[in-house]
C-alpha cells in the first residue's frame, strides 16, 4: 500500500544526475551529504571542547588556590621540549591543511606526502612527550606513585631548576604540587590519547589516499579529519600556555 492520496503534494521524482557510489541513499545530493558530515564533525568537536573544559576548570581553580606551588612545579617542565612540541604540532597542522588542499585539488601524491608528514610529526610529538614523561617518572613526580617533594622543599638540590632560583616551599604548599602534576598528566594524557587516535586514523587514511580514495571528488573524510587534528592542536596551544608558561622569570 503506497502513501495515501493525502500526500498529494509529493514532488515528481527528481532526476538524479550521476549517482556517485558514495552517495548514501537517504541523502538527496552529495552536497547535502558533505555538508551534513561537516556539521556533524563540528558538533563532535564542540562535545570535545566541553570534555576538556572540565579539566581546564579544575586547573584554573587549583592554579588560583595554590599559585606558588604551581609556579615551582611548572619549572619541572622543560620549556625547550614544550616549545619544540608546540612547533611540531603547528607544523603538523600546516601539513594537514595542505593535505586538505591537495585532496580538494585532486593531487594524490601531494596528499599522501602531506598525510605522511602529519603522521610523522604526530609521532615526533608523542616521542617528545614520552621523553618528558620518563623524566617525570625518574624524578618521582607522578602523583600516587611514590610522589617526591624533594625538589619543592629544597629546590637547591635539583640542578634542573637551578636557573629559576626558586625559594623552598612550605610543606603544605609543597604537597599541592602533586595537584599540579595530577592535572598535568590528566590533561596532557587526555591530549595524547586524542593524538594517538588521530595518528591511528592518519595511518588508515594514508593507506586509502594512496589508492586515490580522497582525490576523486570525495574529500569529506580528509576535511573532517583535518578539523579534528586542528582541534587537538588548539588544545595543545592552551595546554602549553597554561602548564609550561606560568612564570619563568627571575
Amino acid at each position, binding site marked *: *500500500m503506497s*502513501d495515501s492520496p493525502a500526500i498529494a503534494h509529493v514532488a515528481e521524482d527528481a532526476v538524479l544526475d550521476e549517482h556517485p557510489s558514495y552517495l548514501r541513499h537517504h541523502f538527496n545530493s552529495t552536497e547535502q551529504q558533505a555538508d551534513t558530515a561537516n556539521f556533524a564533525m563540528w558538533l563532535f568537536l564542540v*562535545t570535545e571542547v566541553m570534555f576538556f573544559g572540565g579539566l581546564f576548570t579544575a586547573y584554573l*581553580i587549583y592554579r588560583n588556590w595554590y599559585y606558588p606551588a604551581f609556579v615551582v612545579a611548572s619549572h619541572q617542565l622543560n620549556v625547550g621540549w614544550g616549545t619544540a612540541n608546540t612547533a611540531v604540532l603547528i607544523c603538523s597542522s600546516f601539513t594537514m591543511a595542505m593535505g586538505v588542499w591537495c585532496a580538494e585539488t585532486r593531487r594524490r601524491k601531494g596528499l599522501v606526502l602531506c598525510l605522511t608528514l602529519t603522521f610523522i610529526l604526530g609521532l615526533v610529538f608523542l616521542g617528545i612527550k614520552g621523553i618528558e614523561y620518563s623524566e617525570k617518572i625518574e624524578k618521582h613526580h607522578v602523583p600516587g606513585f611514590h610522589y617526591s617533594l624533594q625538589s619543592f622543599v629544597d629546590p637547591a638540590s635539583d640542578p634542573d631548576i637551578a636557573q629559576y632560583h626558586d625559594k623552598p616551599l612550605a610543606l603544605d604548599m609543597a604537597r599541592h604540587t602533586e*595537584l599540579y602534576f595530577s592535572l598535568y598528566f590528566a590533561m596532557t594524557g587526555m591530549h595524547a590519547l586524542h593524538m594517538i587516535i588521530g595518528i591511528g586514523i592518519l595511518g588508515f587514511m594514508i593507506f586509502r589516499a594512496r589508492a586515490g580514495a580522497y582525490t576523486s571528488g570525495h574529500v569529506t573524510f580528509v576535511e573532517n579529519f583535518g578539523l579534528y587534528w586542528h582541534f587537538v592542536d588548539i588544545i595543545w596551544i592552551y595546554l602549553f600556555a597554561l602548564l609550561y608558561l606560568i612564570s619563568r622569570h627571575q
Partner: protein
Amino acid sequence: MSATIVSLPDQSTARIPKMNYLSKENGLLSWLLTGDHKRIAILYLISITFFFFIGGALAGLIRLELLTPQSDLMATDTYNKVFTMHGVVMIFLFLVPSVPATLGNFFIPMMIGAKDLALPKVNLLSWYLYVVGGILVLVTMITGGVDTGWTFTTPLSTHYVNTNVLSTGLAVFIAGFSSIFTGLNFIVTIHKMRAPGMTWFRMPLFVWAHYAASILMVLGTPVLAIAIVLLALERTIGIGVFDPTKGGDPLLFQHLFWFYSHPAVYIMILPGMGVISEVISTFSRKRVFGYTAVAFSSVAIAVFGFFVWAHHMFIMGVSNYAVLVFSLLTMLVAVPSAIKIFNWVFTLYKGSITFETPMLYSFGFMGLFTIGGLTGVFLGASGTDIHLTETYFIVAHFHFVMVGGMLMAFLSGIHFWWPKMTGRMYPEKLSQLAALITFIGFNFTFFPQFILGVLGMPRRYASYPPEFQILNVFSTAGATILGVGYMLPVLYLTWSLKYGAIAGNNPWQATGLEWQTQSPPLTENFTKMPIMDHEAYDYEWLAKQQEKEVASVG
C-alpha cells in the same frame, strides 16, 4: 466518553500493508545491523522497557523496606545500594533515552520528511553503547552494587566506600556517549534533512523539543564524562583533585557533575513536552496556541538550563554569592516551562476535546508536572531549600516531574504513536483504565512524600521515626497500585500486536507527515519526497485531504 475521533478502516477488509519496515527483511542480523531509524527505535523500546522494570523492581524494594520504621527488610548498606541502583537505572537507562531514543528516533525523520536520520550508523552505535552501558550496570548490580547514591558525591565515592563505583561510573560514561551521539544525530538531521517547504516554523513542536534536548545532550554530557574520569583517577590513583587532604575540593566534583545533571533533567522532560504538544493538539482538534512561544520556550529552557546547576549544591559549601546568583537564575528557568503549560491550556480552550488514552495521560502530565514544577520553585528559593533539601520533599518533587510528568508523557506518546509504529490499535477501554490506575497510584505514592519532607523525613534513609509510618504506608500502597498501572500497558500492547484492530494510516486524524503514510511505515518512509506547503497543525488542510481522498478512492 462517547465522543471519539478515532477513525479506523473497515476491519473486515483492512490488512497490515505487506511491505513495511518490519517485514522488509527478516532475521536477527537484519535487526542487529540495521541502519533503519525505525528498527533502531524498536530495539531501544524493548531495551528501555526491560531496564524500566528493573528500576521499578528496585523501587518496589525501597517501598517495601519503608513500610516499617525500622531497617528490617534489608541492611542499611543494602538499602543504600537499592536506592542508588534505582536512581542510576531509572535516570541513565530509562528517562534520558526514553522518548528521544524511541519516539524521537522513529518520528523525527518522518516528521520533517526525511528518509532517515543524518547518520544511521552512528544511530546504531548509540544503541550498542546503550546496551553495553546497561549490561555493565547489571553486572555491577549482580557483583555487589554501588551505594553512593546516583550522584556519586565525593569524597564518599572516592575515599570511603568499597563498592562498585568504578564499574558504575564506566557504565554511565558509556551510556553518556550513547546520549551524545543521539543528540548529535538529531541536531544534524533537523538542520540538514528537512524536506522542501519544511521551514523551521512548520515543524511539529515535537521536533523543536527534541532539538532543544539534543543541544543539552551534546553540550552537557561531556562534562559528566570528564567528571567520571576524574572520579576514577581519584579513586584509583588518588590524584587529589577531590581530596581535601591533598588540597583538592570535593565540591569540584559536584560542580562538574551537576553541570550535566541539571540540564539532564531538561533532557528528560523536553521530549515529553514535545509529545504533549502533539497529543493536546490532536485531541482538541486545534493548532497549538502560540506555536512560536512554545518553540522558543523549548530553546529557552535549554539555554537557561545550563545556568542553574548549583541549586543542587546550596547546602554543600558554595559561596553565598553563588547561592544568590543560582537561586535567581533558577526562578527564571521556571518561566519558559510555565509558558508551555499556559499555551497547552489555551490550546484546549474552545477545542473539540476527546478523551482517548493519550489525552488522558497528557492531562495527567499537565496537572502533575505543574505541581512538580511549582515545588521546584520552592526549592529554588535558597531559604526554603535549606530546610527542604535532602528530605522527602525533594524526592516527591522530582518524582512528580519525572514520573507524573515525563513517564506519563512517554506513555502518552507510546499510545499515540503505537498505531503508526505497529499498524495496530490497543484496546481503548483497558488502556483508559490503566491510565486512571496509574494516575491514582501515582498520587497515593508521591503526594504523601511532600508532607513527609516538610515534616522532616530525610531521603535515602532506611529507617525513620515511627510517627512517619502512616504516610509511608500510604506511599507504599500507592506504589503497588502504580505497579499495576504500569504492568497493564506491557500486557495489552503486546496483545495488540497480534489481536489489535488494524489502525490504518491515520486513526487519530492527526496532522503531521508521519500520519500521511501507511502504518507501519515503509523502510524509506515515503515513496516520493514530500513537499511541505502548509503550516503545522493545519486541520483545515487535513480536512481538504480527506475530502480529496473520499473523492478519489470512490
